[in-house]
């Protein structure tokens, strides 16, 4: 075994191994059952918790959404969160406001922070992780992700045009990329446009395990891509099957294919948030190492289904929450 180990695993396994001061939790008040799971598990060890209620531009049906928000809010407050620590923000919020919200959270969180990305749109968690890692006030940072029992047929819609995620489009010398790595998900919203960037090589991160039913939907994603775009580089060997929850392995894969950032790269974080987290960490690591900026392209949906997911998956009788250490006692774990 000759690789760096980056601690990750079930939250109930990881937490006892990081004894110390209480934590500050930043999460999302959404419409999913699983948004409260991290709070429920961590409540006894929290000094502060804050939740962002992130609103789509066109919420519909409004009454149903509001009822669901109220229900989840009730659970969060019952779990120990102050009503004043529930902040309403927009999905398409500017990054200045994002930084301010984060700064307000860090004033009470303490140096040990948990960011729960379970219900957090990628447009938000990518820049937030960047800001958190840039903050010297954060000594230890964990990211958590809770699995759902069931996914809706139609998860989201109304995608914005393909564009970079906020803060992930620093100027580059060349417009072209040696590599484009795409996360495989359920619906290739606007993905066809991505191939206009004319990368040298396209790779796919295919989440496996887990298996069905998501497995079947992932194959459909690839099949749709093949029928929509010219069949470039869709070779079996360009499809990397990686355990969906194994963020470090996905990160390693990106390091290897780009030769630690020597080959230029663009990323498309479709598919599971765990792969997206790996992509985020890779882009930030490349940045820190002074490599050419890694651009991250996404078609941010502007409407999410009310029943995006339902239920909380359990493993061994407890909510299935995975936790990933990004920084421990000031030491960054995801570096090139």
């Amino acid at each position, binding site marked *: 075994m000759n690789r760096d180990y980056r601690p990750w695993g079930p939250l109930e396994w990881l937490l006892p191994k990081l004894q110390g001061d209480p934590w500050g939790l930043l999460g999302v008040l959404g419409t999913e059952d699983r948004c409260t799971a991290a709070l429920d598990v961590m409540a006894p060890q929290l000094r502060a918790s804050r939740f962002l209620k992130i609103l789509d531009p066109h919420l519909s049906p409004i009454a149903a959404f509001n009822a669901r928000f109220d229900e989840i809010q009730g659970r969060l407050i019952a779990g120990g969160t102050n009503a004043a620590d529930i902040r309403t923000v927009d999905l398409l919020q500017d990054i200045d406001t994002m930084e301010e919200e984060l700064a307000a959270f860090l004033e009470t969180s303490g140096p040990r922070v948990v960011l729960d990305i379970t219900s957090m749109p990628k447009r938000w968690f990518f820049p937030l992780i960047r800001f958190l890692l840039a903050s010297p006030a954060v000594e230890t940072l964990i990211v958590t992700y809770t699995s759902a029992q069931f996914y809706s047929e139609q998860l989201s819609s109304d995608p914005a045009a393909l564009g970079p995620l906020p803060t992930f489009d*620093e100027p580059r010398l060349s417009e072209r990329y040696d590599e484009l790595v795409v996360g495989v998900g359920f619906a290739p919203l606007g993905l066809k446009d991505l191939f206009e960037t004319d990368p040298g090589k396209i790779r796919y991160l295919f989440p496996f395990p887990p298996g069905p039913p998501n497995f079947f939907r992932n194959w459909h994603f690839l099949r749709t891509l093949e029928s929509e775009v*010219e069949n470039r580089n869709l070779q079996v060997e360009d499809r990397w099957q990686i355990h969906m929850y194994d963020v470090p392995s996905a990160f390693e894969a990106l390091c290897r294919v780009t030769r630690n950032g020597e080959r230029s790269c663009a990323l498309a974080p479709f598919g599971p948030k765990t792969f997206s987290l790996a992509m985020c960490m890779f882009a930030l690591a490349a940045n820190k190492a002074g490599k050419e900026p890694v651009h991250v392209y996404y078609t941010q949906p502007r409407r999410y289904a009310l029943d995006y997911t339902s239920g909380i998956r359990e493993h061994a009788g407890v909510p299935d929450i995975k936790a990933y250490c990004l920084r421990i006692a000031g030491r960054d774990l995801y570096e090139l």
Partner: protein
Amino acid sequence: MARNPFQQLYVGEKVDPDEFVEIFSHKLVPYAMPLFQPGHVILSGVQGSGKSMLCKLLQPEVRLAYASISEPFPIPKESSRFIGAGINITTARCIEFGNRRAEAGDSTQELMFGDFFNYVVALDIIRSVRTLSADTSISSELGIKLEGERLSRFVHSVAESDVWEGYLKPSVDLGDLERRMWERLARYRRFMNGNDRALDPTVASSKTSAGEPMKILVNAFKSSGVVPSDVEFYVLVDQYEELEKIKSNGADADYRSVVNKVISRDPTLSYRLGTRGHGWRNHLNVFGSHGHLEQDRDYKLIEIDAILRGQEVRTTSVYPDFANDVFLRRLKYSASPGSARAKAGRISDALGRSPSPKDEATQLAGDDPAAVLRIDPSWPAEIAVELRELAKEDPLSAKLGEVWYRQKGTEKDGERPWDDRRKQYWRKERIELALLHIGSIRKQRAIYSGEENILGLSGNNILIFLSLCQHIWDYASQASSRNDRQPELPIAPSIQTIGVIQTARTWLDRIPSDYGRSDDRYKLIQLLGEKFSTALHGDLKMSNPGQNGLSLSIEELRENAEVFRFLVEAVDYGNLVMVEHATRNKDRKRRYKFYLNPLYCPVYRIPYQRSKEPMYVSIDRLKEWLSVAGIIERLEPPTIRRTAKPDAPMPLLEMMSPKH
């Protein structure tokens, strides 16, 4: 499997010279000549209308492609003396202007965007001139001389101009000029990405006014002798409609008005705004002015969809010719010499002709044609016998006879009155529906094959047409018994039918993954498809055979702007077709009729052809349906009708041309 000539549906940014020149069809060029003539142009069309292909002719790389293989450029010589450049709002990532918080007042966002826009376009103009000058034949033809003293004069003239507020001084050569421009854009990117807390002060203090720098650039090219004075400059602003979607902390900076500002009456250079459908009409403001743009005065409008459709009765549609040309070019591009593909002269050489309705009915009826009939038990025996006998040789006529008797009663009115020449319209309006009824009874699909059907199903959309061909070709290859797995031509109707169904399902299932309110549009299509299907299949008398469409009063639509905007979005994304029509009502008020995209019709087993009167529906009824489908909230009280004010742009609805 043999390579599918229709595999690549989208002609992307990357131009392969040989391939583009071979597959590009010139057929639309004569109808879009204003694109290649001085003056501003709005070019609108849904995806797949051929808009992108036309715009490609403005790109210098495409011009080079033609020159490289000694193919004549497809623009008439008198209109080909131009240099094209532009900006694609999406690929230029203009959306990032929503990343930073807008400062209150003073239109800061608009001013920044205008400056950014200027530099992107300016860089592209220089790039285009440089690209064209690198080719001997083109530079000679256009008279471009990017060298020596002329070039020095150009650089000096540009750098010294006050329009840049000193930012480009001192630039020693062209490379230096471009580098400074590029760096400025890089500073914008740094600011928009939060790498810099504030916009670089040298940039912030030297913002240019939208549209002005490009005029300086063009004049400098001409005054220095780099470019002759008779060469026009055309700038394409593509995906214009994306500007509306850039939001910043809830505030709506008016980026479209900034672009509208560049459409001035100064003839130095001409702009082409490429946009989807009708969406652009509701916003004709000009930044910094109280005025607004006017068609014909400020710009010409080219609506590709209308061109392809042709006028309703008199003018021949250009689409069949266009599609035929595209088809043959693709087919021949990779064909072996002497092969059937290489020798094909028409779509029908590969797909055959569509079956006649009589033949189709016979095929659908199968070995028990009398089973297609639903004889009413109350009818006289001789009518039942007549129809059953007739069904043996002509099941379609028999079915129409059944419908006739249902409608008109069983009083005999001559021999087969429905076949009478005087009833030809009655019959024509019901043929397609009769075929579907026959198919339904026999639990068979309708047959979709042949040039006519495939063209009809593609609904004047070249992208859909190519998609149909792709699927049909794929299946034909799989089903081929040839060693080389090439399809056997002409492709069997059964294969084409399956290819059509597969294409239809693919396009329908793709709607939720599209842009805009795609999820709601998908629900809308499901809703209407099922309503039409229920109405048509439940109508045994076929009293209303035209109910595969919806008719709504324009006045009611005007009073319900949100609903109308949604329907127009569905039209702009190609999910619906919208046509004005003459009402059957005594009030003679204008109405619009809406049909599903023809390609979806096989999925819902409704005719894609349009006949007679559509389903007349009130706006309240439609809103009820939309509400039940979860597309809109529960019904609200009617909105107050907006009226136009003298100095405000007219609402969308007022601008809808009655000429569709």
